[in-house]
């Protein structure tokens, strides 16, 4: 068992005086960034733009929460409030959550993880970022030019006939963003199929790759449907073709069917990559192979497959066929099984592990807890009679924020911290990272847990005014949101500072297995000096010496070296 030509760690210590060529310092011109075909640079471009949209969506969210401290709506008019939550939803879903992990961390790590020089189609990858940026620009323009008040779901006939907002422009933006994500999806599928290093069989792939494969399949199969659906809404605003307009014999429920055919699987587009990250981090944090690797891998595919068969559970109260509603409810319960498998298997991985509670691990453990709550509350909404009460209330809001924020964003934060040394070549401040993780966890629960209660009490979502008896819970939620906001600011500060003041990272600061740790931090443009040849299973931590002193993370504080990291050549 050997990892070919892995550079000794000493190499990197030595090179501090004369920096090695890596993807960051390969070229310095603006054009070299904007016209780059290097997946790592594109990932960084994506990271910057996605952070930008996250901030905008976050500002909208905090304004919404500020407004809801009072049941009488003192800050905004009805119309501005509606535009705010629509902006929050549209930006967060289409411009943050869907591309967040795949286009940034996935883009950066997938070729490194499978030992490829780049994605299969580098130009398509760049095109994807441009489409995303153009789409984001159009969406922001629409919001500046009066905004859109349809909510991110664009339900017809409100969006197609009645709304006075910039609906067409926003729809065009979402349409283009859809093609950006399709481009990423196609790229990942082909890359994972065809670009794996020799010896890297499917069952030697890290679970991160499995998760991204499942995600890409969903993207490719689902996105075109929502793209054409939204395009039809845009067309209907201009020409009365009437497909979704009951006045002409069209059917608004058809819109909901076609919209959720994508938008429910889209939830898995957001959560599956996050689950992939959690698998990586848990394996590293416990220094152990993921328990039941095969089952976890297949559960990703099962979630992707079943995810396409449950869209109707968003429509239990619209009067869809009762038989179909039962089928959708049943399959929604079935989706819970692969999710449960993942949670249990992650938990079992810790058993007899050698646990290091580094910041990514803290996010990962937080993820498991929050995703458990988010997933189980999803079952409330999958249960037919219970959904009749809870659908369209704050219970739904709380549920999907537990999955999207507690799940997707915790995974994103875990991944960002885990691969930050790889991406930037710098170490961040571990102490502050742990503090921030704790604050985010607390703030998150404080924000969204009260919303479960609000939902059960019956407070509908998208309400600007609400009956005064709901105020206490709303104030609690807003208080939590401010804690959460502070929690997000801390990483923004220490991660930015680490770019300048951070200690240089070694090739493998976490002492992790996985091909991405076999190359320098940051990696060279071509990723690997030589394409590695894989002869071992994923997460085979037995190939690294299990010497506890080696893994003393105080060494992270030392100048960029984790002494004795046997990045390779271990027998």
């Amino acid at each position, binding site marked *: 068992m050997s990892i070919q030509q892995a550079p000794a760690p000493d190499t990197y210590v030595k090179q501090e005086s004369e920096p090695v060529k890596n993807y960051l310092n390969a070229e310095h011109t603006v054009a070299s960034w904007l016209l780059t075909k290097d997946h790592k640079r594109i990932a960084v471009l994506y990271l910057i733009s996605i952070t930008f949209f996250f901030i905008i969506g976050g500002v909208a969210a905090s304004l919404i929460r500020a407004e809801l401290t009072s049941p009488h709506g003192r800050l905004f008019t009805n119309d501005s409030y509606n535009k705010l939550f629509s902006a929050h939803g549209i930006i967060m879903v289409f411009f943050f959550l869907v591309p967040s992990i795949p286009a940034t961390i996935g883009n950066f790590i997938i070729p490194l993880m499978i030992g490829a020089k780049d994605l299969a189609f580098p130009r398509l990858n760049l095109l994807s970022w441009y489409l995303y940026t153009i789409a984001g620009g159009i969406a922001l323009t629409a919001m500046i030019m009066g905004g859109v008040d349809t909510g991110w779901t664009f339900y017809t006939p409100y969006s197609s006939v009645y709304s006075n907002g910039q609906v067409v422009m926003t729809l065009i933006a979402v349409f283009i963003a859809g093609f950006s994500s399709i481009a990423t999806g196609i790229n990942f599928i082909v890359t994972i199929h065809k670009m794996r290093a020799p010896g890297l069989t499917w069952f030697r792939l890290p679970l991160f790759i499995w998760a991204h494969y499942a995600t890409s399949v969903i993207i490719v199969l689902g996105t075109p449907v929502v793209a054409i659906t939204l395009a039809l809404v845009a067309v209907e605003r201009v020409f009365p073709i009437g497909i979704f307009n009951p006045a002409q014999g069209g059917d608004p429920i058809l819109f909901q069917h076609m919209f959720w055919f994508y938008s429910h699987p889209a939830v898995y587009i957001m959560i599956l990559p996050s689950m992939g990250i959690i698998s990586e981090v848990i394996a590293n944090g416990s220094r152990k192979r993921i328990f039941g690797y095969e089952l976890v891998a297949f559960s990703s595919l099962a979630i992707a497959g079943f995810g396409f068969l449950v869209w109707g559970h968003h429509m239990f109260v619209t009067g869809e*066929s*009762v*038989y*179909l509603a039962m089928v959708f409810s049943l399959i929604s319960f079935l989706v819970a099984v692969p999710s449960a498998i993942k949670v249990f298997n992650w938990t079992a991985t810790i058993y007899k592990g050698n646990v290091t509670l580094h910041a990514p691990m803290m996010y990962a453990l937080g993820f498991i807890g929050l995703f458990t709550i988010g997933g189980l509350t999803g079952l409330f909404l999958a249960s037919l009679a219970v959904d009749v009460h809870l659908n369209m209330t704050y219970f739904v809001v709380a549920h999907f924020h537990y999955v999207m924020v507690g799940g997707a964003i915790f995974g994103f934060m875990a991944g960002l911290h885990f691969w930050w040394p790889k991406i930037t070549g710098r170490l961040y401040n571990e102490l502050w990272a742990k503090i921030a993780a704790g604050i985010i966890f607390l703030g998150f629960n404080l924000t969204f847990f009260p919303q479960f209660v609000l939902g059960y009490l019956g407070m509908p979502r998208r309400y600007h005014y609400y009956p005064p008896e709901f105020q206490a819970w709303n104030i609690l939620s807003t208080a939590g949101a401010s804690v959460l906001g502070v929690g997000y600011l801390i990483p923004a500060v220490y991660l930015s500072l680490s770019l300048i003041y951070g200690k240089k990272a070694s090739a493998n600061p976490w002492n992790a297995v996985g091909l991405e740790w076999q190359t320098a931090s940051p990696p060279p443009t071509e990723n690997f000096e030589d394409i590695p040849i894989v002869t071992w299973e994923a997460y085979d931590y037995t190939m690294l010496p299990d010497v506890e002193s080696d893994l003393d993370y105080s060494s992270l504080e030392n100048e960029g070296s984790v002494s004795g990291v046997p990045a390779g050549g271990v027998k």
Partner: protein
Amino acid sequence: MSGHAHVTPVKVYFTVYVLLLMLLVATVGVYFIPHNILNPPAALAVAMAIAIVKAALVVGFFMQVVYGSKLTWLWAAIGFVWLSLLAGIMIDYSTRHMNMPDGSAFDRMQSQSSVE
């Protein structure tokens, strides 16, 4: 210039083309069969069957899937499989008893069965 590609003999292409034209003639022919001989649903079924055969010929030979790798087969098939999942939306229309928007064909079938 020649790579690893499978080079199909030109004769195959011409044969497929002639077949496609013949099937086109068949489709148009079905259109002219009076309704009392072939009722509209059956005519639609025949037209769709012909279209599927034509599409299969194009996918198989012009697009070279019959010579392609397993992976190509998989990806050529998956789109059509998922399209059938999407068509699951129609189940809603065929089983929605009470709340049909209009007196549609589905509605009729439903009400006929519920009365008799």
